């Protein structure tokens, strides 16, 4: 039943954009039909997942397929259920948001295309998550990857967007190439294209390593693990905001899904793999947020935070893998439980942040942080939503980000504790790294929130911004509520996470410790409530005290200067300057500053930017070298068909002689 509901949802979502193609491009009717279908499909999909949790039953659907080796076989388990929720939820909210953000009447040339591929991307992701056959998985994967290409290049009339689209397309195909190799090795090891655990007796160690490395690279590119993240920042920045929300919140998690699924097949992973994942997680986390601090573009900054959060998720997965190697159930549950919860949390707060950012861009027509400012006065609701998202992404209580980071902290500290077996204290050093990530995230989001929403407007656009319509605020409100719900009542989610962990490590299904006993989730609830109540009480006390005293208004104290202007405010670049300097050895910021000024300086300017080091220093030079290398091949290939016929003729002669 649950599988049928999800499949029905997938079919409706995939076709949701089709009726719109037949309707007039200057009217809203097509968009209403599409949104209705997309919401219906997503609601059916979510219904299927809830049905699965309620009954715990799974009835795989298997259909014959004429493709050799392929089989249309889908099933839901604890893991796929967890990944299906953000796919359908964010798609549902994103479609409603699009009603106000990307109106067909305002974007007649690309609105229909956007909605068509929004639906197919949702369907592709849902399909790959429930696929039981690697060829079916690849079909879902490619539907998702190609739809995302068309979504990123929605505004393909701009050069920058087209360039971003190309980089994305190359990256995603490198990833797919790795997946082809991965599934070929899996087929060789397992004898079929059915996805399932590998037999430890027949598995050669080399094959296991090949599977792990191919999965890490292929899925790592999609997930955006540092240094495989090169496509991610621009793609998230260039896409329309509800597409960015879907890509950052959900699409990159498909890479994580692949990693989680494939690692669950490997019977006895060596400890080094877990350590490698943990190290990559720490690197992605710290460097992701460090790059984010240096950005001037609101959406690019959020995109780098996706890399940071993927890092946190990979840390959890690495811990779980180490736990599996050393047979420590508590590390598995806390590590993987934390990672799976962080997948949800990141989908919620990052979608919230991107939708709020979209709301800002919609109102102020710029993504430049240093041209915004003072929006809290003209857009109070958007500003509140962004604040909730910012506090949540920093992992601060009482919101959802705290819960998942708390679980990972407990797991990492747990590696210090001696069990019956040999412990592995080295991984505990990831805990201070997680603390560093958290503190850097606070610095970054204070900067963004302060520069965009607080103070006074730095440009005319920001001064005349307006609050967004309810169709945009509504989805943001739902996400805010979800952030609070998970932050205040994590005990509700514990059984779902437990189910996901059991799907990864089946021996923990009925035996072993439970998440709810390993982590004091009820304490998180009471502390969260206490915090909320105390803040409320403190606010009331201050408000009453102010009400009885004398309250005056005046200009901001400028140490005696009484006419402050918006240009005198601290900019986001100045705010970040010390941290960018501290990480200068890896960020390599580029600055232009006036030098050797004469006694009466003429007009000059200062400019700074933090480009993507991996893209600029490693990837682009490599590709340029490749282009130069292959240019030698042009001697043989110059588009003259007669010469090609000659090649064929000579080759045939050679073959005849050889025979």
């Amino acid at each position: 039943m649950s599988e049928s509901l999800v499949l029905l949802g997938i079919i409706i979502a995939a076709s949701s954009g089709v009726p719109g193609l037949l309707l007039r491009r200057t009217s809203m009717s097509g968009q209403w039909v599409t949104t209705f279908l997309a919401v219906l499909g997503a609601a059916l999909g979510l219904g299927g997942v809830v049905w699965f949790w309620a009954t715990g039953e799974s009835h795989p659907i298997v259909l014959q397929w004429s493709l050799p080796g392929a089989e249309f076989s889908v099933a839901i388990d604890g893991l796929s259920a967890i990944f299906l929720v953000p796919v359908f939820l964010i798609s549902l909210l994103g479609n409603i948001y699009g009603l106000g953000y990307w109106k067909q009447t305002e974007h007649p040339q690309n609105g229909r295309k956007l909605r068509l591929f929004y639906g197919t991307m949702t369907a592709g992701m849902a399909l790959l998550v429930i696929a039981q056959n690697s060829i079916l998985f690849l079909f879902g994967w490619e539907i998702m990857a190609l739809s995302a290409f068309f979504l990123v290049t929605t505004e393909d009339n701009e050069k920058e967007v087209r360039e971003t689209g190309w980089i994305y397309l190359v990256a995603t195909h490198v990833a797919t190439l790795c997946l082809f190799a991965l599934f070929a090795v899996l087929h060789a090891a397992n004898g079929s294209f059915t996805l399932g655990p590998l037999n430890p007796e027949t598995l050669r160690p080399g094959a296991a390593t090949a599977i792990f490395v191919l999965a890490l690279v292929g899925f790592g590119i999609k997930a955006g693990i540092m240094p495989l993240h090169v496509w991610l920042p621009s793609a998230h920045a260039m896409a329309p905001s509800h597409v960015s929300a879907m890509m950052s919140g959900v699409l990159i998690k498909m890479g994580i899904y692949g990693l989680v699924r494939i690692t669950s097949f490997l019977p006895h992973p060596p400890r080094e793999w877990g350590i490698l994942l943990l190290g990559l997680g720490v690197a992605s986390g710290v460097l992701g947020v460090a790059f984010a601090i240096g950005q001037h573009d609101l959406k690019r900054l959020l995109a780098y935070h996706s890399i940071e959060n993927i890092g946190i998720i990979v840390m959890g997965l690495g811990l779980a893998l180490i736990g599996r190697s050393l047979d420590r159930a508590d590390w598995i549950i806390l590590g993987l439980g934390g990672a799976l919860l962080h997948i949800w949390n990141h989908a919620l707060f990052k979608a919230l942040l991107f939708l709020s950012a979209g709301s800002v861009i919609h109102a102020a027509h710029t993504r430049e942080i240093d041209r915004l400012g003072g929006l809290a006065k003209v857009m109070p609701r958007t500003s509140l939503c962004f604040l909730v998202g910012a506090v949540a992404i920093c992992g601060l209580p009482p919101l959802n980000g705290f819960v998942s980071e708390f679980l990972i902290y407990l797991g990492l500290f747990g590696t210090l504790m001696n069990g019956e077996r040999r412990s592995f204290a080295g991984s505990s050093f990831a805990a201070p790294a997680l603390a560093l990530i958290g503190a850097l995230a606070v610095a970054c989001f204070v900067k963004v929130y302060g520069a965009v929403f607080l103070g006074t407007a730095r440009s005319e656009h920001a001064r005349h911004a307006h609050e967004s319509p309810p169709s945009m605020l509504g989805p943001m409100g739902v996400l805010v509520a979800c952030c609070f719900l998970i932050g205040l009542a994590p005990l509700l989610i514990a059984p779902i996470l437990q189910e996901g962990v059991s799907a990864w490590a089946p021996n923990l299904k009925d035996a072993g410790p439970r998440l709810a006993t390993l982590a004091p989730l009820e304490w998180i609830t009471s502390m969260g409530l206490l915090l909320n109540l105390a803040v409320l009480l403190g606010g009331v006390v201050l408000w009453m005290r102010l009400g009885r005293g004398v309250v005056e208004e005046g200009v901001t104290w400028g140490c005696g200067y009484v006419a402050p202007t918006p240009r005198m405010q601290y900019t986001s670049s100045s705010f970040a300057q010390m941290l960018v300097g501290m990480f200068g050895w890896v960020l390599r910021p580029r600055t232009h500053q006036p030098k050797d000024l004469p006694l009466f300086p003429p007009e000059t300017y200062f400019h700074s930017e933090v480009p993507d080091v991996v893209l600029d220093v490693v990837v682009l030079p490599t590709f340029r070298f490749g282009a130069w290398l292959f240019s030698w091949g042009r001697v043989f290939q110059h588009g003259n068909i007669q010469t090609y016929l000659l090649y064929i003729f000579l080759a045939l002669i050679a073959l005849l002689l050889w025979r």
Partner: protein
Amino acid sequence: METIFHDAVHVLLALGLPPLLLGLIAKTKALFAGRVGPSVLQPYYDLIKLVQKGSVFSTTTTWVFRAGPVVALVTAGIAVLLIPLADATAPLSFTGDFVLLAYLLGLGRFFTASAALDTGSPFEGMGAAREVTFACLAEPAFFLGMLVLAKLSGSLQLADMLGSSLASHWSADGESLVLVLLSWFIILLAENSRIPFDDPNTHLELTMIHEVMVLDHSGPAYGMILYGAALKLFVFGALVVRLAFPMTGGSPWLDWPIFVGGMLVVAVAIGVVESIMARLRLTHVPILLVAACLLSGFGIILLVR
């Protein structure tokens, strides 16, 4: 019955003592400078005076500016309830409570710094930037120290990590604990904006960190900030005291005075440091904080080698 007694003493001490620490620091500095100085109770008078005063709010500010002091006070207020003071479990105690402690202070920092940016003043922006930047280095040092305590106690609960069993570890693994103690004392100075990181009494806004962040606050809201800062000093002071004097006298009538005495010693020590040192150049602050991280880092390496 005994827990109720302990909790009551805990709450009374944690809420009543903090301003006295500020007074004692000022008194120590005055004595060093050969002055009489204000009474040690002066911070209490200041708080009472501020609560009764009127307020001025800048026209650029929003509700975030008013929320800053409230959140800073509330988070510090909950944080003091998480720390075990004398040889007793804190009123709020559970596995992983130290993570909540660190993140509560992070929440307070988020709102204090946001409130500073809400004024649109370049000075306050500067202060906020410095505060969040230095915290990035202080936070890992705190967690590295916690790794040492977790390893020694085999527990993830502050009540055990800073419990009386620590006294026995001082003889066996003293070198690790000394390193953590040094590291945490540096963190205490940094997080509470004391010399050598920040000079709370300097006259030049350009060089301040915490004081410049709260320039625009006035009246009761400023009182909340002052009290919140005192509570935060108490939190870090209590951590250092429990680490340095974990011994128990066997009876609560002895344990509580030991603890209070320890806190007073810490306050005097801060005063001495402030009297004999100058403020560091801002560019040198990160180096000292990285050193604090390394001290704790060596502490844990000594344990798990």
